[in-house]
């Protein structure tokens, strides 16, 4: 879509009268009232706005027939923002939900880190409240009465004493002449007044996703489209020696074969054809030679060896943590464990792709991206074109999980389109998509812990040794590897966390939940080990630890005295207690079955889960997963439950199936024949319960994935006494 608004060139404060008038100047041509605003809130509040050139990235459009469109600067990739975020607007603006729709903004901001709701909640509520109050003021002015006698509901303003009603659509002309109230001072509704938020509403994007009508990146079909693939080095850091294009050009349908070279000097070969198939056939026929480059000796075995060697050396980094001693009660048990986790591929089912059309000084990009503005910057830089000449049409994303921050294919598509006078769709085949992915970090953690007979954990030390993902961001390697030690909710008087890096040239990146994906596994498995070492039920062990730092209810008499950390521990305790109850934790299970429990806090949300497994011949099946989630104010329980079920399923897939291995610098698992994903027969039954809460909403997109591995490992231990410490799980290597 193309927005109709020319934002003013000055950078006025958000929602200023000047901005309002300028943005509503389109009324004459469309009849709509338009309010522009910017989506970035508490999570990124410390940062400068992403697109400094424009004061807006999102708009509300109100039409005379009462339709309302939210032009939204977030990517929909299945996480439900195209429903949850307009619900926030509808709530605060008092809209008729059946008349609300979403339009993709071309100013799409970074979508990730379970941050969309947290970043957008306040800006959307403020913009919605501004709209509501302006409509009330417009109606009052038209009636010549006081605003206080009016209220807004379902897209109408009602005069309470007389019962007269005016629709928002009929108030556009009046509203346009009024100043917007100050966003920071406008009254926001209290949660007790909510009528939309908290309802399990159907997702707005789902009907088109059942008919084939939804347009993903690969479905971009500009007039005259041609298709391309790129021949890329099979090893990371490999370089092009030479190629002979004659055989490729003989393939029917192949239009051209040529070298592309990016600004960072990477040389590759593009094959452009009338169909994707012909382009792939052309690449198969291409004679090409690669210099394997300096990393052709990389292997997973060598990385594992490097990890094991580092465990016995002094760490490269030590986090500052508390080191107190505590007098043990009864005998003390010391345990030591090593946990390991492999590289993981994102493998969304839509392979990586971008479509680019360059016409003179104008460039259109159609792409399934988690960062539309980032794509525009990248393309501008690569083509030497001003950003203002580039339009990024963000398509539905056929699975994100962190993979759609990758720009390598966007650069390639731009370079190919530059040489073609036609729109070009670059497709990475499944093999390209896996081989050139930025993998989840691999490595391991060596832990030592001491626990007394009462379940007090006296000490806990953890040496993390992994490949890190921080390099490309210029951050120190340990930046995103440890659990959040500031909110380590199990009180441990003597806590050590250290880090050493495994050096690798294999590309790494953010994989759904980033470090939570392995820290959840390691931490919640090791706690379970300590519980069993102390011979205390794993639920009660966690419960006692979380409660041990809490002032006794008898002594304090009230919860108001709790510190923030104690409040967090209390919230975690609450979901833990509920999951024990909902899963019937204490009820006996048949022989060969087991239950595992775990709890976690991330993205300011809390989750506790219980898995039930049944041991089969040489293997096991996960039958049931019960989840209790406290994500603060629930926007849409339908969407939250979907994220918990789906996240946990993806976590189970990683726990039971997935690993990328490297040999001679080459990725060994290049398609779904070797990179196995979980399939329906291995999917458990889910029961998901949401806690009522008025806290500002927390993130849920990545929460559900964090505990899949430990609940299964803990359940298998309960059933067999075998502890699974290496991902993906293999029962035959589990230690007794």
């Amino acid at each position, binding site marked *: 879509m193309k927005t109709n608004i020319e934002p003013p060139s000055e950078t006025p404060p958000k929602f200023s009268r000047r901005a309002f008038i300028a943005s509503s100047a389109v009324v004459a041509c469309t009849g709509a009232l338009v309010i522009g605003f910017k989506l970035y809130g508490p999570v990124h509040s410390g940062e400068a706005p992403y697109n400094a050139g424009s004061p807006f990235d999102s708009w509300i459009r109100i039409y005379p027939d009462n339709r309302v469109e939210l032009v939204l600067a977030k990517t929909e990739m299945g*996480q439900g923002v195209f429903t949850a975020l307009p619900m926030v607007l509808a709530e605060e603006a008092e809209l008729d939900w059946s008349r609300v729709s979403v339009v993709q903004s071309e100013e799409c901001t970074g979508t990730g880190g379970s941050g969309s709701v947290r970043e957008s909640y306040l800006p959307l509520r403020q913009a919605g409240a501004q709209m509501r109050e302006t409509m009330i003021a417009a109606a009052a002015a038209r009636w010549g009465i006081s605003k206080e006698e009016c209220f807004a509901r379902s897209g109408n303003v009602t005069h309470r004493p007389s019962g007269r009603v005016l629709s928002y659509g009929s108030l556009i002309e009046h509203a346009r002449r009024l100043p917007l109230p100050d966003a920071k001072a406008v009254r926001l509704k209290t949660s007790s007044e909510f009528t939309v938020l908290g309802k399990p509403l159907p997702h707005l994007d*789902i009907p088109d996703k059942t008919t084939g009508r939804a347009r993903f990146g690969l479905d971009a079909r500009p007039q005259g489209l041609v298709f391309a693939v790129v021949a890329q080095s099979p090893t990371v850091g490999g370089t092009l020696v030479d190629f002979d294009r004659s055989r490729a050009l003989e393939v029917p349908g192949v239009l051209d074969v040529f070298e592309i070279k990016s600004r960072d000097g990477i040389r590759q070969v593009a094959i452009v054809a009338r169909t994707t198939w012909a382009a792939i056939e052309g690449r198969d026929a291409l004679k090409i030679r690669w210099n394997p480059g300096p990393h052709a000796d990389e292997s997973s075995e060598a990385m594992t060896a490097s990890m094991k060697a580092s465990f016995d050396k002094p760490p490269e980094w030590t986090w500052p943590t508390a080191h107190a001693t505590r007098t043990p009660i009864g005998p003390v048990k010391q345990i030591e464990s090593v946990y390991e986790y492999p590289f993981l591929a994102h493998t*969304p089912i839509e392979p990586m792709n971008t479509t680019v059309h360059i016409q003179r000084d104008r460039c259109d990009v159609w792409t399934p991206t988690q960062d539309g503005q980032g794509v525009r910057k990248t393309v501008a830089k690569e083509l030497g074109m001003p950003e203002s000449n580039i339009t990024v049409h963000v398509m539905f994303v056929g699975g994100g999980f962190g993979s759609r921050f990758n720009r390598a294919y966007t650069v390639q598509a731009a370079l190919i389109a530059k040489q073609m006078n036609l729109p070009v769709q670059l497709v990475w085949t499944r093999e390209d998509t896996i081989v050139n992915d930025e993998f989840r970090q691999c490595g391991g953690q060596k832990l030592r812990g001491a626990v007394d007979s009462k379940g007090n954990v006296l000490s806990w030390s953890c040496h993390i040794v992994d490949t890190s993902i921080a390099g490309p961001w210029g951050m120190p390697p340990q930046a995103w590897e440890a659990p959040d030690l500031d909110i380590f909710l199990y009180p441990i008087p003597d806590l050590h966390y250290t880090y050493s890096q495994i050096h690798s040239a294999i590309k790494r990146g953010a994989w759904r939940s980033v470090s939570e994906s392995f820290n959840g596994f390691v931490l919640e498995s090791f706690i379970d080990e300590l519980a069993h070492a102390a011979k205390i039920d794993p639920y009660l062990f966690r419960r006692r630890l979380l409660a041990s730092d809490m002032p006794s209810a008898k002594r304090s008499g009230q919860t108001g005295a709790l510190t923030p950390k104690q409040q967090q521990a209390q919230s975690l305790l609450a979901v833990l207690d509920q999951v024990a109850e909902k899963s019937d934790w204490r009820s006996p299970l048949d022989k060969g079955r087991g239950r595992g429990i775990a709890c976690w806090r991330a993205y300011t949300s809390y989750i506790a889960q219980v898995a039930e497994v049944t041991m089969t011949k040489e293997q096991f099946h996960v039958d049931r997963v019960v989840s209790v989630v406290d994500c603060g104010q629930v926007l849409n329980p339908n969407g939250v439950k979907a994220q918990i079920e789906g996240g946990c*399923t993806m976590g189970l897939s990683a726990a039971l199936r997935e690993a990328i291995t490297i040999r001679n610098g080459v990725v060994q698992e290049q*398609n779904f*024949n070797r990179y196995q994903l979980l399939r329906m027969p291995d999917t458990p039954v889910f029961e998901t319960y949401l806690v009522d809460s008025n806290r500002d909403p927390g993130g849920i997109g990545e929460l559900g994935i964090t505990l899949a591995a430990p609940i299964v490992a803990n359940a298998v231990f309960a059933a067999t006494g075998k502890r699974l410490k290496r991902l993906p799980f293999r029962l035959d290597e589990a230690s007794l």
Partner: protein
Amino acid sequence: MPQYLLQINNATRKVEAQPGMPLLWILRDLLNLTGSKYGCGIGLCGACTVHVDGEATRSCQVSVVAAVGKQITTIEGLGQNGLHIVQQAWIAEQVPQCGYCQPGQIMSAAAFLATNPKPTDAEIDDAMAGNLCRCGTYFRIRKAIHRAAQEMQS
């Protein structure tokens, strides 16, 4: 290039293609029927599933030559008279997340229910094991298939 006549969604379509070109790319790149999705190209993800003479088939594994003379139905042609009962069930159970694999899931489910109108969980799991979903919607797919089966009974 050779020409072929194909029966797609109850219409005859003429295409020019190499004999070995898979039906998936005929649909997507020549006929603009983009509802059938490319996911792996080796028949292991199911995103490209269509019906060939009523049977769920990976269109990336069927050459255009092999498709001649067959009745081909894609997601675009499934609900000829409004939404198919399976599509309705998908909406009722709120199945899709990213949605990319869902046309293939729906085509597999529709063909399966046509031959097994009262399936058990295990039969559903077995029938749907060839369709991958990275968002993890399998649990809701199972529920949607049961719902569609019930709707078909009544």
